[in-house]
């Protein structure tokens, strides 16, 4: 059973993603900020990460994605965020600055999220 970690400061998003993904049979863990998220990645060793951007700092998710890649975390990351709408940005994934596998703006349809997870996990 694949383990998925959700790092998002919004408990509603955590809960919604958890419900959707648990229903699909995934084991789901949650963290609410960057520091907790980094610890959880080390402890849980998730097979996939769903990562928010705007947490304690508005750019936390960008910084955390790079930090994880620097630490050698190679599992897929879905960046699930409303940063573009909130800040008027046009960010997308890129190897240097946004090293994630999918960049998904909130809100996301449950089916889309599940499809992305399955695709990235090769299921």
């Amino acid at each position, binding site marked *: 059973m694949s383990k998925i970690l959700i790092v998002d400061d919004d408990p509603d998003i955590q809960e919604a993603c958890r419900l959707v993904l648990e229903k699909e049979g995934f084991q789901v863990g949650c963290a609410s900020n960057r520091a907790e998220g980094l610890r959880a990645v080390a402890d849980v060793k998730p097979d996939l990460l769903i990562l928010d951007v705007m947490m304690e*700092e*508005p*750019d936390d998710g*960008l*910084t955390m994605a*790079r*930090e994880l890649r*620097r630490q050698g975390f190679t599992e897929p990351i879905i960046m699930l965020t409303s940063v573009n709408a909130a*800040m*008027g*940005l*046009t*960010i*997308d994934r*890129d190897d*240097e*600055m*946004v*090293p994630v596998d999918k960049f998904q703006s909130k809100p996301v349809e449950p089916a889309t999220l599940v499809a992305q997870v399955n695709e990235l996990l090769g299921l």
Partner: protein
Amino acid sequence: MLKIPESTTRDDIVAIVERHGADRTSLIPILQDVKTAEHEISDEAMQIVADLLGIHPVEVYSVATFYAFLHGATEGRYVVRLCGTLSCDFAGKTAVAEALRSALGIDFGATTDDGVFTLEWASCVGMCDQGPALLVNDRVFTRVTPEKVAEIVAQYRGKAADDARQDIVTARNELTYASIAAGAGLKAALALPRGDIVDTVSGAALKGRGGAGFPTGMKWNFCAAEKSEHKYIICNADEGEPGTFKDRVILRDFADLVFEGMTIGGRAIGASMGIVYLRAEYAYLRAHLNDVIHQRREAGLLGANIGGIEGFDFDIVVARGAGAYVCGEETALIESLEGFRGEPRNRPPFPAVAGFLNHPTVVNNVETLASVACIFAKGTDWFKGFGTDKSTGYKLFSISGDCEKPGVYEFPWGITIADLLKEVGGGGAKAVQIGGASGVCVPARDFARRLAFEDIPTGGSVMVIGPQRDLLDVAENFLEFFVEESCGQCTPCRLGNAQLLDGVELLKSGACSAAHLADLKALGATMQVAAKCGLGQTSPSAFLSIVGAFADDVTTRPQRA
């Protein structure tokens, strides 16, 4: 079709436009050159420029009349601008003004009949530690006395050329910048992937030194993540905040560190062009900055494939401001660089998304950029060894007013006002104005407070106010400044500052009722939330802090007959 009158100056203007390029972004440099050549920007000249740039003459007029150093009217060969800032006031500006009036035989705003001199006020020329100060064209004179006025006037009457290169000695303590080996920071940064450069700056928790204290790493992070073919990094060297002159010292003595910081920033965000927006009052630094840029190009530190990194092309140009305090505000600065009036923009979009020419742009203060170079040279732990948890590193403070040793001083963030005053011989002060005209006035009973983002944040201006000073004069000086410098776009600022200034006059004459004062305080509070940009949001701060902290003094003036 626009009808262009025949003119003897048309060829000159064509040559100027050709030199700068017939592009809207060249409008201000073009007008600056026209002004230098003609000592005026005539209606005819505006029409010719408009025609050559393919814009309406009213556009040219609206820009020319916005900037203090441009305005259309005929000026003398030498424009004498006496600094009106509080520190120059304390140092004896009024007597110098009188001496200038009598030596030139004209009042402020006028030109001598022979067309040699024009006399004007300047908002702040950034010589607050050595006032009274004045500019004659680009040249600055400090510690001017009434006696020295006669000498200066005689010197210009008999002289044709104006040597704009100048060395200005500023008192200081030991500055960390002096201990940083040139090139070390850039070398360390260029060895890192772009993302790591951003993360290093974030890791150092560097906050902007221009006043607002925005986290530098975050600004770079968003701009770096944006997708765009063109990006820009701008060094904000407008330093117009009254009582601030530390950027002048950094630009003069540590320009390499500033350019290193810009180059590192350029690499991080993916910019290939850096622009230094240098205030008009610092024109005498321009040749020096261009020399340093030239040397860096020769050394391969600017240009193509810097540091051997394929595709990392980056260069720096120096743009001249034209005498408008509001152009220090980053979106007004960008408007100015684009050839428009320096009117702040609405946000969002932020410059990191849509800045110069609508491309992602980072604007950073001179000192922020120099600090970036130090962080890469010495490491984030070293940097965080200075200051407090929330305000890491060290800061340059521009200290002026009633103290024995005014100058530029470096202290770690978190220093108390009392300790700072001890260092500069400011004992006996009854208040200090922290953060310039847009900052707050702190009474002596609060001198245990700290200069830090978590207590009293500041861009570094500290004006010491001695026991002999009248705080209503202080408020008046600042409000006159804001009335002059408001861009006029929004009502709270355009009318609010004038109302507050009226209120100060009423307080001075003992004619301000308690009810009216309450209204003025409410007005100030409204401006803080309703003004469009930082200028109008902060302009009531000094007034509000003075009528708050010194209520017993300012509300008890005897009524004047």
